[in-house]
């Protein structure tokens, strides 16, 4: 059952030959605009945010982007392509479709990275009853949801091979505070139906943190890239930095380096039920001015002439490179 093709370039509003930087910038702009926490129309924004995230998942990864470009150039590849989590490979007669996980069928089919769908193996000899397969699906969780925990509605549509009837099952899934990437949430009895009176398998929802315009996650730790000026790195400064639960004032020490990580303990995601939290890391990104005024140029030249760093032999000569 081929799933609907998604035009990820249109979703992000970039050209097909857009650079990785263009894609990153487009994602950040759209993600800020449609983030469910800031948008006025929450429901529409939520759907749009998920679509933007999905497009970014594919286009920001060179391997996935190449595969996507090949798919869009040759739609026939769609036929007979492998199905991952949404459609159990082991039981082709029984189809699954989800709403509410945050990923489209198209994404799950080609780009989810696969999930293992353990085959129901439990034969009870007397009745030959067989437990249904467990199935696994990606579950998009925003960092804010992972921070505070939430309950999300999910709709699962299946086609029962025994009756030929479509069935819809609606339920809610509790996302616990601190749900880390890769954690699986078990939904008992919502996997494949059992055979010959066997019980149904379970559904495992595998948490995938949605890309955030300002933060990335690593287990319970949160990372934030902070752009600073060269003089701030050299002289040190104090800046206001956003975190998942409010802004903090952060002192950047003098003589900081590009790529240096500053750790703020206990401002990451919650860890278990003990009340402890991961850490918040700020990664310094020293930025240089692209266009400078004549006054600024004079100051840079003055610095060049007085600084003892990398003194070149012909330092005052102006050189050009082709």
């Amino acid at each position: 059952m081929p799933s609907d093709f998604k035009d990820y370039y249109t979703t992000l509003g970039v050209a097909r030959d857009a650079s990785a930087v263009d894609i990153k910038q487009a994602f950040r702009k759209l993600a800020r605009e449609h983030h469910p926490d800031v948008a006025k129309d929450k429901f529409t924004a939520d759907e749009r945010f998920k679509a933007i995230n999905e497009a970014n998942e594919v286009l920001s990864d060179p391997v996935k982007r190449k595969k996507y470009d090949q798919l869009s150039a040759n739609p026939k590849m769609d036929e007979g392509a492998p199905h991952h989590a949404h459609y159990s490979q082991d039981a082709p007669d029984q189809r699954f479709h989800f709403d509410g996980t945050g990923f489209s069928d198209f994404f799950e089919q080609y780009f989810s990275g696969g999930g293992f769908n353990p085959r129901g193996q439990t034969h009870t000899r007397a009745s030959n009853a067989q437990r249904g397969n467990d199935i696994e699906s990606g579950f998009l969780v925003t960092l804010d949801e992972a921070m505070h925990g939430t309950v999300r509605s999910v709709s699962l549509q299946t086609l029962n091979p025994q009756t030929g009837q479509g069935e819809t099952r609606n339920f809610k899934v509790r996302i616990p505070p601190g749900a880390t990437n890769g954690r699986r949430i078990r939904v008992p009895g919502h996997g494949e139906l059992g055979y010959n009176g066997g019980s149904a398998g379970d559904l495992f929802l595998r948490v995938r943190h949605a890309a955030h315009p300002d933060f990335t996650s690593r287990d319970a730790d949160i990372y934030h890239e902070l752009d600073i000026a060269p003089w701030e790195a050299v002289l040190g400064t104090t800046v206001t930095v956003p975190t998942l639960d409010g802004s903090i004032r952060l002192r950047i020490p003098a003589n900081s380096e590009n790529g240096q990580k500053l750790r703020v303990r206990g401002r990451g995601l919650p860890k278990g039920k003990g009340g402890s939290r991961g850490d918040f890391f700020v990664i310094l990104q020293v930025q240089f001015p692209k266009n400078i005024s004549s006054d600024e140029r004079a100051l840079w030249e003055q610095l060049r002439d007085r600084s003892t760093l990398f003194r070149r032999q012909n330092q005052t000569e102006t050189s050009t490179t082709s």
Partner: protein
Amino acid sequence: MKPNPSENASDLPVYGEETDTAYTIEVIAELANVDSKTVLRYQEAGFIRPVNTADQATSLFDEECLRKLRHIEHLRATCGVNDAGLKLILELLHEVEILRQEQRLGPR
């Protein structure tokens, strides 16, 4: 038109634990349809790890252990893998999962 999952959502059943669930060896064995001795053997082989705190005498297992147990039993039943093979496959699958995350999130 697809149904909106959020409609009339107040009466729907809620899954996923409010607090971290922990099963005794007997319960997790029943859920995975194996006997307790098998669970113990997998624990001793290092395939699954209990989630006990230091002051808990009885082994307790979480839902990730349950998933792994079913996974292991699947490999045994369908592929005829012995313990050495299981160890290798589980380590490789774990490695693949880590690498996929690294690829997606980038190394830190």
